[in-house]
């Protein structure tokens, strides 16, 4: 039992904006009205937030693990975690090891993370890796938009069948939702090509277009009652002029709920690398008029990182552009993956536009319930650098100072210098916690309401917001104090959220022959056993 008193509470889910009030936690790690006895934390002069929720990150699975193998030179120079009685050893850096990932997230007050890209084939691996990430609660999204069995159903126009197949895959992967990456483009990459036009048939198919995949998947996700709508990585990522593709994609989603991942990478104008410019105003306008769509920024921070994405063709281009290491993983029948280490430089025009675009989206989209803090870790920057972004959002003068480091010619390519909006603490709490929790459909997260999980972070009020958000005084996970005075005290295991959609009982027998025709493993070995997932929290879908 725990009582937090005298703290200034920011709880956007319940409209609490800096009120001084008490928060009580019972023995089950839930927030309650009042308690008898127990420890009291005097949070006088401190601010109290719901624990952070990362809507889009890559912390476990075949891809990030491949990235770890590819970057030993970074591990050598990075932060090391030395083994203690309660803490396992590990390494931070661009692709932190699992234990370090948990410590780093919790260390800045984040308590729930959503691993946004899991192929069903390596889901078993991903769950085992996730169970080695301590403290935080987790969920996963299944990569589906290039799955050949599903695409064949969509090509044939068999919508109901496609819905059952998708539901079956979600449960086979023991995941929480659906992620679509470059719909059709990754399938085309198996032929060495890409899918950049939403209305042209995909390589290997007669009629099926990326546009059809997008609209059908969004409909399926709604009809299956997924707590989190379709999580979409649009076609044509990173390319100058891709704003037209992105707006076209949004039109295909008209009327549906959806989450657009890392929209910074999809908001460029211009016709080449020299003329690339930010088109975030157009994109933000769309969000400002369409409340059914949420997004995360995918903001870029200058420095070294490693890019990992299922978008194989894009990574091949990035390899050709940079001449750096390139890893390519083909996941049979399902998806692909590319890994390229990358350095974002302020002196580089494209990188400077990317840096500005991420911040512009966060500032131009008016509702923090619609745009969330993310760097698409590790693609735009590492998650442990979130406090830097918070400072950029809360301090316009600091932004102006940073703009001075950029090349002079940048002015014509971005709109950031004209924006003087500053985030309030209430808005930060929305964009880092309440908003993403709501978008994920995790009702017990991102809120300090009665009955919610007691995931709470307490910061010592400080004018230097980067320092404040980087070093919380207390982090409480499910009622347990895990960080106190800058030290990791306890490392409890987090839960994993799964969603079990309902599907027609003959689906398995329908998939079996198709599966046996094109997969290289046996059908019985394919679905992840529920018993393998430690501390699973299953949400059941209603029968349609």
């Amino acid at each position, binding site marked *: 039992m725990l009582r937090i008193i005298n703290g200034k509470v920011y709880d956007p889910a319940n409209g609490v904006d800096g009120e001084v009030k008490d928060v009580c936690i019972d023995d089950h790690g839930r927030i309650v009205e009042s308690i008898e006895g127990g420890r009291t934390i005097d949070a006088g002069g401190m601010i109290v937030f719901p624990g952070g929720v990362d809507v889009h990150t890559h912390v476990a699975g075949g891809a990030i*693990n491949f990235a770890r193998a590819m970057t030993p030179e970074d591990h*050598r120079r990075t932060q090391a975690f030395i083994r*203690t009685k309660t803490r396992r050893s590990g*390494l931070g850096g661009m692709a932190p*090891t699992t234990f370090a990932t948990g410590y780093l997230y919790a260390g800045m007050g984040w308590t729930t993370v959503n691993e946004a890209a899991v192929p069903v084939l*390596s889901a078993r691996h991903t769950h085992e890796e996730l169970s080695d990430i301590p403290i935080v609660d987790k969920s996963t999204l299944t990569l589906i938009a290039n799955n050949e069995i599903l695409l064949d159903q969509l090509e044939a126009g068999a919508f109901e069948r496609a819905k059952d197949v998708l539901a079956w895959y979600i449960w086979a992967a023991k995941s929480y939702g659906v992620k679509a990456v470059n719909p059709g483009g990754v399938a085309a990459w198996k032929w060495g090509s890409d899918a950049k036009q939403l209305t042209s048939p995909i390589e290997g198919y007669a009629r099926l277009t990326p546009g059809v995949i997008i609209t059908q998947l969004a409909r399926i996700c709604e009809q299956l009652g997924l707590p989190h709508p379709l999580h979409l990585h649009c076609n044509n990522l990173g390319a100058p002029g891709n704003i037209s593709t992105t707006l076209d994609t949004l039109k295909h989603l008209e009327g549906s709920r959806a989450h657009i991942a890392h929209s910074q990478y999809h908001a460029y104008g211009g016709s080449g690398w020299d003329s690339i410019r930010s088109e975030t105003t157009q994109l933000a306008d769309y969000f400002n008029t369409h409340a059914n769509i949420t997004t995360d920024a995918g903001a870029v921070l200058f420095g070294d990182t490693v890019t990992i994405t299922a978008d194989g063709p894009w990574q*091949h281009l990035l390899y050709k552009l940079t001449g750096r290491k390139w890893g390519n993983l083909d996941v049979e029948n399902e998806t692909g993956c590319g890994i390229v280490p990358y350095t974002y430089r302020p002196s580089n025009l494209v990188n400077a536009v990317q840096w500005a675009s991420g911040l512009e989206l966060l500032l131009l989209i008016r509702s923090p319930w619609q745009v969330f803090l993310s760097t698409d870790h590790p693609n735009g920057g590492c998650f442990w650098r979130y406090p830097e972004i918070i400072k950029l959002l809360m301090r316009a003068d600091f932004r102006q100072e940073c703009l001075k480091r950029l090349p002079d010619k940048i002015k014509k390519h971005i709109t950031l210098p004209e924006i003087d909006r500053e985030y309030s603490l209430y808005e930060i709490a929305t964009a880092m916690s309440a908003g993403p929790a709501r978008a994920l459909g995790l009702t017990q997260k991102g809120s300090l309401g009665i009955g919610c999980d007691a995931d709470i972070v307490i910061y010592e009020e400080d004018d230097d917001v980067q320092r404040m958000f980087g070093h919380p005084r207390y982090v409480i996970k499910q009622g347990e104090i895990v960080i106190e005075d800058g030290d990791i005290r306890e490392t409890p295991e987090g839960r994993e959220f799964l969603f079990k959609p309902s599907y027609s009982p003959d689906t398995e027998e329908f998939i079996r022959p198709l599966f046996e025709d094109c997969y290289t*493993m046996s059908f019985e070995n394919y679905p992840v056993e529920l018993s393998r997932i430690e501390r699973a929290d299953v949400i059941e879908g209603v029968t349609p």
Partner: protein
Amino acid sequence: MYWGGNPAECHPRHFTKYTIMQKSKFLPRGRKDRTMVLVDIRETKSVKAADIFLQVKPGKDFELITILRALIKDQEVRDDHIAETGLTRATLEDLVKRMKAARFGCIFFGMGLSMTRGKHMNSAALLTLAAEMNAFTKFVAMPMRGHGNVTGADVIMRWQTGYPFGITFNRGYPRYNPGEFSTVDVLVRGDCDAAFIIGADPGGTMPQPAIDHLRRIPTIVLDPHITHTSKLARVHITTAPQGIAAPGTAYRMDEIPLPLKPPLKSPYPTDEEVVRRINEAIARKPFWLPDGNQPHMLTSQV
């Protein structure tokens, strides 16, 4: 393309299950729709399965790969350089033409490439060749791993420590240096004062000085069988064989985990159970640092 490997004998299911025999949506005639090239220094049993066999002179793999990298980009290559590899210009030009004409090329390389003259430089060169082929068509490359669950060990070490092998924890956090911290080097130098061996038989494969050191120190072996290592060990704990009498997970070479479902029961404990009990016993001992002398995080390493 198989390079420096002999799958017919070392990975007997590879041809039939994965690479050349399977019929599929885009290759409905199976074997007939595929071309298989084998590169090796001698005629192995795999030659029979190949459409084209390229016999490279021993120790000239790196040169051959470099020549291919030049040829795919239409760069000039001197005749005497080609002659060094033991192959002809016509053969290599034909190979390059076929590689570029392929819709999807896969290169599998074995220890004949990665463990002979040039070692990791050979692997790097071949991976670069595959990467550069993507300018023309889809190409991938993958190593043919050894027996057992070596990929699984590699994968888990990576997620827990960031490195695949050759790791030391002697400063309390993982550090990596193949050639210094690899098992064989630690043993040959005599740097460790105890050894704990699971699912491996270094006594049968490592150099004599390493084996001598294992004999000198307390060596503990977990193995279902009597092995060279178990014979020289101070303690041999017999365990249930994985996949036969013990459940678990094994990783395929492409890092896809497969569940192991044991058909038999064993009177012996599993490796997991033994390790868990040892861990529990160690946890009851005092911590490695005295109380009040806690280690701290390092923010920059030296």
